[in-house]
């Protein structure tokens, strides 16, 4: 069983990851390149690119012209195994080409006796926006169709009530009724 999260190793990886983030902010290609394992076995997936081996990663770095601004680390989780291996997982908010987004970055770090800690695999992905609540869209559009203004301070309560009604309606809609049952709006008890 390896030693998980030795405080000294955690601190070491945190410092390295901070330095990596600084290099990224400065678009310091030489430093970024040095953080990666110089091997054909290294892998890096970007949001759109799939890079196999150090040569492809380096070529990408030289030609990459995506401008990243407002990069903020929202959450970072580091797990270390003995003093040889570490995983860094982050959530980041940033703007790429001026478009704001929510990203995930994962890195696997391994310590080599000759060169020290290097990233051996990395993956960046863009979190899809949570799907729009169906009742939010429904309320907005149906209200507009009925010429019923929904004031911004009234809207959340309306959506909450529609969501509650949907939960209440679901088992009723699922309950089978015999054919030929007619609605009884003017009802005789």
């Amino acid at each position, binding site marked *: 069983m390896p030693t998980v999260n030795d405080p000294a190793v955690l601190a070491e990886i945190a410092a390295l990851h901070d330095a990596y983030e600084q290099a990224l902010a400065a678009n310091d290609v030489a430093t970024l390149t040095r953080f990666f394992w110089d091997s054909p076995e290294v892998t890096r997936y970007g949001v759109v690119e799939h890079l196999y081996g150090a040569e492809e990663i380096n070529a990408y770095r030289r030609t990459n012209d995506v401008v990243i601004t407002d990069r903020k680390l929202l959450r970072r989780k580091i797990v270390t195994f003995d003093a040889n291996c570490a995983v860094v997982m982050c959530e980041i908010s940033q703007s790429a080409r001026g478009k704001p987004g929510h990203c995930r970055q994962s890195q696997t770090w391994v310590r080599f006796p000759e060169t020290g800690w290097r990233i051996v695999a990395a993956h960046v992905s863009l979190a899809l926006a949570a799907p729009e609540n169906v009742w939010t869209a*429904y*309320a907005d559009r*149906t*209200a507009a169709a*009925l*010429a*019923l*203004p*929904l*004031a911004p301070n*009234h809207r959340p*309560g*309306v*959506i*909450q*009530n*529609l969501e*509650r*009604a949907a939960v*209440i*309606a679901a*088992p*009723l*809609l699922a*309950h089978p*009724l*015999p054919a030929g*049952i*007619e*609605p*009884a*709006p*003017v*009802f*005789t*008890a």
Partner: protein
Amino acid sequence: MSLDPAATTALEIADAVRSRRTTARQVTETLLARIDHTHSRLNAFTTVTTDRALAEADAVDAAIAAGRNPGPLAGAPYAVKNLFDLAGVVTTAGSKINRDDPPATRDATAVARLRAAGAVCLGALNMGEYAYDFTNENSHDGAVLNPRDPTRSAGGSSGGSGAAVGAGLVSFALGTDTNGSIRVPSSFCGIWGLKPTYGRLSRAGSFPFVDSLDHIGPFARSVGDLALAYDAMQGPDPFDHACAQWAVEETVPHVETGLGKLRVAVLGGYFAEGGDPVVHAAVDRIAAALGVTRRIELPVPQLARAAAYLITATESGQFHLERLRTRAADFDPPIRDRLLAGALTPSAWYLRAQKFRAWWRDEVRAVFRDVDVLLAPATPLAAPVLGQHTFVFNGKEVPLRASIGLFTQPISCIGLPVVAAPVHGVGPLPVGVQLIGAPWSEASLLRVARVLEKSGVCTAPVADLAS
């Protein structure tokens, strides 16, 4: 005058007035003073119709002096939820918006019939806005304070009606019940209530809420008064399209006839689960008093509640659409949000709910072939504290206002008649039990109620306002 109108039934007052032991005017003046000096404790009345009340009382006294029959409710003091039209008074229906309406030009049908029976109307009562409410925390008129405990809700939406009767401001009161608005205040205020069969009493001249589900009915502190007021209001009315062409069937002559061969059972399943154990203990106490051990379950009652919920939301939202377009900011906030959401309800849900209702009515009719009266709690808890938002039901925290009607909604969904019977002493606060019957069986329910009243299991004493 030895008679204290605050603690006297309409029946006794009418008897005393007719036999000239007191006058309608004396009763009226005593209660007008009581309404005035207890107002800050209860906030039950929104309009006190002093001139009208004194004129009606004088008319009763004049009839007696002239040897004419003043009617069965001679001098009996009552008041109405402020959605009933009273000639000369603006029918606010608990709202700010309707305050801009002109005063009503004539009385509601129910009010006109009570007047004809000799009753004296003392005013209009506080209610939850547009009746879409179970706690009567009205932001325009203020909350109604429970006569049994001023920190607690009197229930809604007919909260002023429940409080006025419980506090002895009137002998009886009128309210309306769409999903429980008579049975809930009856339960929380510890008094009797009658929600008759759908279509039994005319709603003409009452401000609507949900046409498919609206009922009117009386509150009282005695079964005899409930029957007397109900009988006085019966009869067809061309001004309410839902009012049945059904002849008057007086209940007063039947009230004292005892249980006879009536078959009574406790509703199990959905109606026996969840909520405060006190409400189920109240059902058990009534069942024990009647010697009832039989239990019956209705099929999928939770879906009848769902149907009532959706019909309510859809019809009320549609009814208020123009007011929502132009005056959304003037509604009570929680009621506005429910009405706005209701206005957007998909028609597929609404029609499914209406079809389900037709099917469920037939299923429950079949149940009544083998039983006459079903017992179930009126509310899942006793009166909640004002400002309370949730309570625990079946181990889960649920929203209070949306859940108070869990046991009443399935029943009114198919228009069954119900007497809400008050049970005091199972817990620190009273709770109500529903005596539920087949359509048009009000007389049977009142007979059972009277048995419970006579045996002392169900009573509705005037609240001690000092406590």
